């Protein structure tokens, strides 16, 4: 792996003292964090560390109560979800939220078409929109669903739905892909396949993921952030994080690290 710092020393996303309170409870407490372009950046931490809330703040489904978020140096703190999608932030959700009655292909097409143009799409039928179709087919192949293009999402397995979610997210041509516990509830085989899919993503897509499955984290990530009780504990390479006594104490100490 090439050190991304050498090629592109830019921060794609920067969090400056971002907080989110629920009443007196600080779910995210003044987190500052930089995500470099092109990295595979994982956020880990025990339950209740504030990882999911942090994701919501980044995607825009929850507003931050303090601090600011910058995408490419531009302040996006006050932008709504759909504007952030337009700027290149895509999310896959912990609770699958696909269009269940539509086929896998149609799920991806919805995002592809929206990305391609801003009209209502009344003119040409889908079947003659060859570029969009080709792209949707290619995305499904890319995430490892080559034989499920015409299967309704409701009939896909849990793991396949997560793969489809990744395809839908990729269809919006994101620069930053947020993966919220992609391996939750998946079998080891499914997890391995999804890991491959994410690992094979092109370098221009920056990946930020929350994951409990540390095998997956340490296989995928080249930067790891540890959160604890809503606060940013440390950020570093997987090796550094594993070696950090602070982290050991707060989190890893209670778990068996297998690598």
């Amino acid at each position, binding site marked *: 792996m090439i050190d991304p710092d050498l090629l592109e020393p830019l921060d794609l996303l920067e969090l400056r003292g971002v907080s989110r309170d629920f009443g007196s409870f600080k779910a995210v407490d003044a987190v500052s964090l930089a995500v470099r372009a092109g990295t595979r950046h994982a956020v880990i931490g025990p339950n209740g560390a504030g990882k999911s809330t942090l994701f919501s703040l980044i995607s825009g489904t929850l507003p931050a109560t303090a601090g600011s978020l910058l995408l490419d140096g531009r302040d996006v703190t006050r932008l709504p979800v759909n504007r952030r999608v337009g700027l290149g932030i895509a999310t896959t959700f912990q609770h699958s939220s*696909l269009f269940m009655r539509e086929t896998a292909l149609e799920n991806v097409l919805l995002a592809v078409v929206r990305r391609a143009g801003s009209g*209502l*799409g009344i003119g040409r039928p889908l079947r003659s929109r060859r570029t*969009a179709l080709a792209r949707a*087919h290619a995305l499904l192949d890319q995430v490892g669903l080559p034989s499920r293009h015409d299967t309704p999402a409701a009939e896909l397995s849990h793991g396949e739905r997560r793969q489809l979610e990744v395809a839908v997210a990729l269809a919006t041509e994101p620069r930053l892909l947020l993966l919220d516990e992609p391996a939750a509830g998946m079998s080891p085989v499914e997890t391995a396949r999804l890991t491959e899919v994410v690992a094979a993503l092109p370098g221009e897509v920056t990946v930020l993921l929350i994951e409990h499955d540390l095998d997956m984290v340490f296989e995928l990530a080249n930067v790891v952030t540890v959160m604890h009780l809503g606060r940013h504990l440390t950020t570093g390479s997987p090796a550094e994080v594993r070696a950090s006594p602070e982290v050991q104490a707060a989190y890893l100490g209670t778990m068996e690290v297998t690598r």
Partner: protein
Amino acid sequence: MSPNSGTDIGTAARAGSAARRVPAVMVLAGLALAPFVLGSYAVGTLSRILVLALLAMSVNLLTGLTGLATLGQSAYFGVGAYTAAIVARKLTDVGVVQLLAAAAVSALVATATGWLAVRARGVVFLMLTLAIGEIVYSAAVNWKSLTNGTDGMSGIPPVVPLPGMPALELDGLVYFYVLAVFLVLFAMVAHLAGTPFALALRGIRDNEDRMRAIGYPTRRYALTVYGGAGALAGAAGALWVSVQRFVSPGDAGFEIAALALLAAVIGGSGRIWGACAGAALVWLTRDYLGNLEVVDGHGKLLLGALFVTAVYTLPRGLTGIRVPRGLRSVAWPSRKRTA
């Protein structure tokens, strides 16, 4: 590569399409030959069913495709019918002009009133459309200078389909005019069903929040389809006037709206022809079976029995009787449990 990941979405289905087209061709041929075989009443009934099938299709655009159950489509049907009647009496007997005028006015009224309706979903949407329907009905009753009140407007000249063609007096000839317009509008709806627009509407039906999250302005989509469905209902209203040569407030009333919604639902939202088949079933039951001597006015009993039976025996509507797999991509999907 996947077996069907070519550039055309229909690759897999293309092989089967010849076989699938056989029933369509047979139905078309039957419709085309009907006036040569059937008597005047049967053909007139067929004309009316084609018109009401268009109305049911318009309901299905909202209800089946977008998931917005409506009890207000008779309002735009009525607006179209009155527009066509007024054009026919005051301006021209050319059918195409009546159709375009009716569709335009109905689209306009639908967009103006739909602005209120598309803010809501579910039962509230249903009730808003009901309110719009009732208000249009009351307007038809009370705006006497325009509509002639409850007496309705008669004395509408026979329709001339295109300039230069003869006026159509006979039921069989009117039927051909209706069939021609029906097929054109059917083709337009079939085309629409394959566009990204229709896919987006299905997305709204299934998961509107998610649609917003991928960046779709969903209310604009809902309003657009509402206006379009209004135009379709208006065009059906214009045809209704060509067939009936009469229009009264009842044409904009609750009974028509309810029957059209029921036709669309028992037809099943899966295919465009489902609404047409549903309309045929509903109106044949009411007007033909209901007037058989043994039935003697118990048409409503028959309709009720039809609805109850349909709900239990055809969970996916008429179109679910034989669900063709494969080409679901472009046609509307059958109603399915989302688990």
